[in-house]
Structures are given as structure tokens and as C-alpha cells.
């Protein structure tokens, strides 16, 4: 598999670049968001910053990652009937990950709205917990993309 990666056609490079760049930004946004929310100590400006890290970094990263994934998939496996296991792991973590990211953003958005009205950070703690789960899932996905288990 590593040798196959070494001889990949040039036309796959740009979609792969978008995919990897998006995925790294997604993971960076999740780590930044989770860390800021965890270390905010209840301070509103940091709770907002943590939420915005998820919204303005992780979400665009996800979109870029997913566009790149679909593009490279159509080139590499467009005519194939059966996908290798690592592709399945990638799609599964991406699909479930999107659902979880959207839940984190929605409850976090409500949390930020409540903060402005003097509410507590409970919902944003939920966003942080989901972000940590997503980080763990994406570590597995990145491992699968690299090690390419059959």
C-alpha cells in the first residue's frame, strides 16, 4: 500500500492536498476549541473563543476535508465495487463526525446565547466533550489513512 501511495498519479495530488489540509485544520480546530473550552475557567470571552474555534476553524476544515475526500475517492475508487477497510473507516468517521460536530456547534451556539443572558457554561462543556470524542475518532481515522488496514 505504501508503494502504491508512492506511485500515485499526478492528477490525484491536488484533491489529496485539499483532503489532508482540511483534515489537519479540522483536527487543529477541534484541539483548539476543546482546549480553550476546557481551560476557560468559566470566563465568557474564552468560552466564546473556544466555540468560535469550532465554528470558524473546525467546520471549514471539515468541509475542505470532505470535498477533497470525495474528489480523491472518485479518482481512486470511482469504478470499484468494493472499498478497502480503511476507506470505510474514513467515511464512517467522517459521517458520524459531521453529525457530532453539528450537535457540538448547535448546543454550543445555544450555550453562547445563554451566556449573554447570564446563563452557565454547561452546554459549552457538552461541546467540549463532543470535541474530545471527535479528536479521538479522528486519531483512529488518521491512523487508518496512513496504515491502510485491509
Amino acid at each position, binding site marked *: *500500500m*505504501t*508503494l502504491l*501511495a*508512492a*506511485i500515485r498519479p*499526478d492528477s490525484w*495530488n491536488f484533491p*489529496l*492536498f485539499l483532503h*489532508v*489540509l482540511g*483534515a*489537519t*485544520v479540522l*483536527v*487543529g*480546530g477541534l*484541539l*483548539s476549541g476543546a*482546549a*480553550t473550552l476546557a*481551560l*476557560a*475557567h468559566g*470566563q465568557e*470571552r*474564552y468560552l466564546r*473563543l473556544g466555540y468560535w*474555534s469550532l465554528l470558524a*476553524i473546525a467546520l471549514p476544515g471539515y468541509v475542505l476535508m470532505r470535498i477533497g475526500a470525495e474528489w480523491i475517492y472518485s479518482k481512486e475508487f470511482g469504478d470499484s465495487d468494493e472499498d478497502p477497510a480503511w476507506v470505510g473507516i474514513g467515511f464512517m468517521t467522517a459521517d458520524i463526525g459531521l453529525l457530532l460536530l453539528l450537535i457540538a456547534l448547535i448546543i454550543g451556539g445555544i450555550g453562547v446565547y445563554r451566556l449573554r443572558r447570564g446563563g452557565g457554561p454547561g452546554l459549552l462543556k457538552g461541546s467540549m466533550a463532543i470535541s474530545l470524542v471527535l479528536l479521538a475518532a*479522528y*486519531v483512529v481515522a*488518521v*491512523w*487508518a*489513512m*496512513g*496504515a*491502510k*488496514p*485491509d
Partner: protein
Amino acid sequence: MSLDDWILAFHLLSAFALVAAMTVFWVVFVALRESGGADATVAGLMRVGAIAVGIGSLGTLVFGIWLAISLDAYQVWDGWVIAAIVLWAIAVATGKRSGDILGADPGAASEETKRRALLLHGIASVLVVLVLVDMIWKPGA
């Protein structure tokens, strides 16, 4: 799965840690601008970034060179591998300089110092993206 597949996986995970660290430091700069001074939250974020950048910078280099030695298709002296190592070294040095000039107490740094640190961090971030471009296109391979 072969050993090379595992090395590639750890090389990739390290690269993700490196970019994640860069992102955390971008958030630190936003936090410094918003709050004006550093506090426990900013210090904590800088610690998270420092741990991630340590794992990422060391891991990408060690596993990357290991992979270049292990795979028959590549050599450590290939132009694109040398280019990646040079870009990596400049990125790490620039990023470290950015952290050094901010100092242990970024809140006490002057606006001019913060701007210089931000510029250096921006340069380091662009260099990391260039390493990614080099890794994917492998010019000359």
C-alpha cells in the same frame, strides 16, 4: 500491515499534531488580542500547543527519515526529502523564535513584540503548508 505502514501512520499523526499545535498558537494570538494580557487560560493553551508542537515536530522528522530509509522508492538525499527537512527546520526555528520573543509571560509583552511574534508564527505556518505541498507533490521523485 507492514512496519512501513505503521511508520507512515505515525508520521501522519505527527504531522496532524504539528498543524494542530500551529492552530492552537493562532488561537493564543487571538486570545492575547481579545484579553490584552495573558492569564491561566492563555498559559494553559500555550502548554497544550507546546506539547503538540514537540510531538509533531519530532515525530514528523524521525518517522519521515525512518520512512525514507526504509522504503526502496525513496532516499533521504532525494531533493524533495531534503527540501522538506530544510523547510521543517526553518519552520521549527521560526516558530520557536515566535514563542521565545513572547516569553514566559505573553501578557507583559509589548504590542510591537506581539506583532513580531505573530509575523514569525505566520511565516512558520506558511512553511508547514509548504512542507505538506512538498510531501504530496514530491517534486523530482
